[in-house]
């Protein structure tokens, strides 16, 4: 079975995000980028499927600027077999990404697509669902456990207040949640092996997809600053403040 993994290059989760002074977006110059953490989980899950003998080939796909190749290389070092870079300097919105992924799925014919439930930069949480819709495939979103059976998969989903277990037919789309697994980090021998693994580069035009944005970003702003807290001297004072100032009890 072939598995396609979608991975996004995002600003590293440790970086303190700064909004550009003209409010058009966030500062990306001299900022560390790395693989979207949910996508690392997707790669890890796919690699585990391969190690368990349930998948034969893992294809890692990333889309965007040339440097996305670094992100793909990381996936290859974690255990993916080959990479595809859809290279473009254009802004890619979730619908465009889903269409590009669909074009690649048509070409590659994987039985399973695994991707992060959302990317930590724009938090859209749309691509997986849109892809499933475009393909007409079943989807198991927010997966915290994936068990492959014969022509089907059982997916435990994280939902508000609990877990839901669904069974979906393959081929299918699975989006990963945080508790699915703990991604490995690349060892040096695997980094060296990854250098020799192939990465194909295509463009949206090659795939016949129009990626023109459908949404316009009007303004990006910092969240409002939190006010400093106060220390209370006693429980009585706390209760008093909760009652009379915060008016929550």
């Amino acid at each position, binding site marked *: 079975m072939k598995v396609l993994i979608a991975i996004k290059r995002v600003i590293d989760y440790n970086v303190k995000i700064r909004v550009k002074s003209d409010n058009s977006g966030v500062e990306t110059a001299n900022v560390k980028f790395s693989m979207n953490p949910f996508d690392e989980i997707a790669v890890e899950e796919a690699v585990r499927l391969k190690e368990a003998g349930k998948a034969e080939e893992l294809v890692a796909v990333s889309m965007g600027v040339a440097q996305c*190749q670094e992100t793909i290389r990381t996936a290859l070092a974690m255990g993916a077999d080959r990479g595809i870079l859809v290279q473009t300097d254009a802004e890619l919105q979730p619908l465009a990404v889903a269409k590009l992924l669909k074009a690649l799925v048509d070409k590659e014919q994987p039985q399973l697509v695994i991707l992060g439930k959302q990317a930590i930069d724009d938090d859209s949480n749309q691509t997986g669902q849109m892809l499933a819709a475009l393909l007409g495939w079943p989807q198991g979103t927010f997966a915290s456990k994936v068990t492959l059976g014969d022509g089907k998969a059982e997916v435990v989903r994280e939902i508000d207040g609990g877990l839901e277990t669904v069974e979906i037919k393959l081929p299918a789309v699975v989006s990963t949640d945080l508790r699915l697994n703990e991604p490995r980090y690349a060892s*040096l021998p695997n980094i060296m092996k990854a250098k020799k693994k192939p990465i194909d580069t295509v463009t949206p035009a090659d795939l016949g997809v129009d990626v023109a944005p459908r949404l316009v970003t009007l303004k990006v702003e910092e969240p409002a600053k939190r006010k400093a807290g106060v220390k209370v001297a006693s429980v009585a004072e706390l209760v008093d403040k909760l009652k009379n100032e915060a008016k929550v009890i």
Partner: protein
Amino acid sequence: MDFEFDETQVQIRDSIQKICAAYGDEYWLEKDRHGGFPDDFARDIAEAGWLGIALPERYGGAGLGVTEAAIMMMAIAESGAGFAGASAVHINIFGLKPVAVHGTEEQKRAWLPPIIRGEHRACFGVTEPNAGLDTARIQTRAERQGGEYLVHGAKIWTSTAQSANKILLLARTAPLEATPNPIDGLTLFYTDLDRRHVQVKEIEKMGRKAVDSNMVFIDGLRVPVDHRIGEEGKGFRYLLEGFNPERILIAAEAVGLGRAALRKATQYAKERHVFGRPIGQNQGIQHPLARSWAELEAANLMLFKAAALYDAGRPCGAEANAAKYLAAEAGFHACETAVMVHGGMGYAKEYHVERYMREVMIPRLAPVSRELVLSFLAERVLGLPKSY
């Protein structure tokens, strides 16, 4: 001229950062208080294959250059592991280069894989109490007796000798008077640290408590001839070849630790409010921090220039020595600044920067002092009379 890391180099930095993330400030603080080798950290580094970064692929290494090794060592120090973390693995990275270059096929097959896997720990027995920086005048003797050498003498500062099972040992095999050039007559061995004939005594020192440094007394150690590296009398020349990469790695570690200090200090300068504003709003606080950033960046450029020259097989003595000097001083200024920016808290162990300041003295002193670096540059680059 290209100042960007390539894909592999980015991965090296990121993967090391991830390993180090499991060993936070509290871990190294505890190691600094109570000592004890950071075995678990060293094991994680070894298990992910990092110790072989610069050793040949044929023996299980990755065959990468000193550039990549420097990226790795910088990332370790910069994580806050400082010299405790860096020194725990430092010798495995380049220490066995003389074996890789001058060893026989048999020696390489026997010695390199276990070092790369982290099963062997080697220490570096060069410095002696009565010779200091004048290495040509070391007094440890190795006398040939049939198929063995009999070794007597003393070493000092030998790091990791408490737990090492191997020692890379420099000893005199021909009397100084009998060698026209004082750098000849010294022979390099890689042999078992046999504690029946080697006594190891830890030196209490200023910092880096987790990684021991020792006085080593060698009394009648028998070293088989096939533990000799290369030719008799050429040992110091072999070691000299490894000096430049070692200077580059030490420089990388110093820049890394300096950056860790700068990070802590900058964070504190933003958070600490006095006189109704963050202390970092005062230029008196800003300027030393900004200067440290600039100094660290400059040292960083010099060390990667030296590394690029070395990896291209070109002479790099001036650059490697200058990098070691600049990085150690820049690292020191950054750590000192970090203590001062923290005010009284800078003196408290739980703020970590005083530990950095104690550790950053190491690259200023070792493996070669500031003064000797400057003497070397004066002679070799400026053409002034040799002074040492």
